């Protein structure tokens, strides 16, 4: 009896680690969770910190997130400073040596991608809440996701070598599905379409699918537009007749509605991450995003 109590206590204190088969992964954003699920299957246990309907730019580090990070075998995040407002605090407070910067278990997905809009000259906050390492919203880019999936599979295989074969196989089937999907997506006629967007959120999508973003409602990132800017924008919209005014679910909806009423151009709210509106995975997210742009 006493032995059992002591064992339970030690177990509670996690001094004994019964061999858990799954790799405990903490992912910041829902789309990352979705890609990790594709590669890791049932060999990983995923916790996503940010909710699908939250604005990824404005997240507060909650104690429960620190708790999750303290138990993580691996941390996977977007990078390019998108998580700078909360992730450094979570990593520091987690006391988890595994997920500290510089280790394999601290996986910054942006290392695998070619970031666009890297500032070509010095930037500062007079330009708003600028993304200083380039545009971090690369998750709507099939080409970049391809590389990210490869990076995740590589790292997982290295850290959990017993299941390396399994992760490689999953990556291959992910690629097969992606190839099929890309054919399907490629047939969409988005070329030559013109849009006005709220935030610089669709740049990767635009360059891969050949449409144009001819203006932004947000004059500077994170700063509400001025009245003068909106006036000029109305002129631009009236002159160039874009196909739609686009924004994501979390903000800019009211601005888009207002401009849509003023100009008669339709406003479209585009789902921005996995999990919102029963979007079950990244493929569905891409389907929905492209549908809504058509």
């Amino acid at each position, binding site marked *: 009896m006493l032995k059992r109590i002591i064992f339970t206590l030690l177990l509670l204190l996690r*001094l004994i680690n019964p061999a858990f088969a799954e790799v405990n992964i903490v992912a910041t954003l829902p789309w990352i969770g979705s890609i990790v699920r594709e590669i890791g299957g049932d060999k990983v246990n995923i916790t996503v910190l940010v909710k699908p309907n939250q604005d990824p730019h404005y997240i507060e*580090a909650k104690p429960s997130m620190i708790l999750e990070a303290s138990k993580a075998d691996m941390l996977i995040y977007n990078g390019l400073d998108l998580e700078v407002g909360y992730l450094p605090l979570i990593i520091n407070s987690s*006391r988890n040596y595994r997920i500290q910067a510089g280790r394999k278990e601290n996986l910054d997905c942006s290392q695998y991608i070619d970031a666009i809009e890297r500032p070509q000259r*010095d930037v500062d906050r007079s330009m708003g809440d600028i993304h200083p390492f380039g545009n971090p919203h690369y998750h709507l880019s099939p080409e970049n996701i391809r590389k990210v999936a490869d990076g995740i599979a590589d790292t997982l295989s290295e850290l959990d070598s017993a299941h390396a074969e399994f992760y490689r196989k999953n990556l291959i089937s992910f690629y097969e599905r992606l190839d099929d999907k890309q054919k399907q997506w490629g047939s969409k006629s988005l070329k030559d379409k013109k849009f006005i967007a709220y935030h610089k959120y669709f740049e990767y999508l635009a360059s891969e699918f050949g449409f144009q973003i001819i203006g932004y409602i947000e004059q500077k990132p*994170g700063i509400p537009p001025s009245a003068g800017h909106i006036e000029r924008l109305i002129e631009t919209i009236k002159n160039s007749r874009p196909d739609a005014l686009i924004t994501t679910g979390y903000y800019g909806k009211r601005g888009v509605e207002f401009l849509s009423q003023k100009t008669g151009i339709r406003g479209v709210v585009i789902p921005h991450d996995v999990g919102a509106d029963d979007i079950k995975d990244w493929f569905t997210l891409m389907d929905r995003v492209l549908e809504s742009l058509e």
Partner: protein
Amino acid sequence: MKLYFFILFVLLFSFPAYGEDVKSVSSGRLRLIDISMDALFSGGWSTVNDNTLQNIQGGGHDPRKRGFTVQNVELSLTGAVDPYLKGEAHIVYFNDPLTGETRTELEEVFITTLSLPYGLQLEAGHFFTEFGRINPRHPHQWHWQDQPVINTRFFGPDGMRGPGFRLGWLMPLPWFSELHIGIQNANGETMASFLASEEFFDERPIGNRPFVKQEVKALKDLVHLIKMDNSLDLAEDITAKIGISGLYGPNATGGNGQTIIYGADLVLKWRPAEQVRGWPFLILESEIMKRDYKSATYLYGSDPENVIDLQEETLKDWGFYAQILYGFMPRWAAGLRYEYATGSGESIDGRNNDPFRDDRSRISPLLTWMLTEFSRVRIQYNYDHADHLPDEEAHSVWLGIEFMYGVHPAHSF
């Protein structure tokens, strides 16, 4: 003169184009030190004069002068020391409201371990005591422009801090639960309720007792802290954090003078998922604390006609604040704070006449306008009711401006 050097220093080293914190625009570079600078200024008026304001706005960084106050200009320097340690330093400048003199304070300098096993974290150096919510936080992390009355009474004008170490343990429980134990020196002007300093007692003697200088002879002559924080997500968009804190150490009244301070703090935050740039939000915060200040017997004087003979007595004080802040539309927040403080056991000239022990309440509505995350304007009205005041009440209005630049560290919950 010092101020000029300071400004020069800030201009030379914190200017984004030249400072260390400039974000790399090419691929990686060596990131040695993150610099940030936060400045708090205020202007306002009160129905009581500047001397009385030093008592009712008793926090060292409170707005506390008819006209303008340079409340707090803080230079923060943080960085990775090596793979095991993180370093942090906060240097504070402010103007003495009465003399106009520039004062410099080494507010905090400490290291934190990053990867001790079993959920442990060690902090060592000179730092704020982890008691309650307001004390361990810097003025720019407070929602109101002044510190709570009860904090001023127990922890002095600049908050309780000192050299020592602290061990934090993230306990392996299903919810967030953190235990802190700490030891710090008991002496110095920032250790008001403990061994304090002669200068502090010249200004604000606790219970009007005389200061007795003491030596550290054993471990019990240091201040000991125990603190436990628990947090739960009550719903997807509501998070609660509850803390209990306790302090124990010798005090400045003599040989067997001892102080115990204990308290509880609560914070509730509502942040709906679909926020616009962080709005709307609702934050409820409250702290209650009690101090048992056991004063030692005191006998002084060789002339039998003129002996100061004080009996051993425990002065008991307690108080609380409760505040609610509602971010009702992007850039705007409105709040209300209520405070109460009282005690028992006499101060030498009577508790009613002791500005730091009398019965007191304060009501403070607040309106905040945040231009961005990096600048805000606040207007606050304080209605004070205190026994020691000539009319027992005071009205004050403070308009404050704050700006910060440099690397913005993530806010703790």
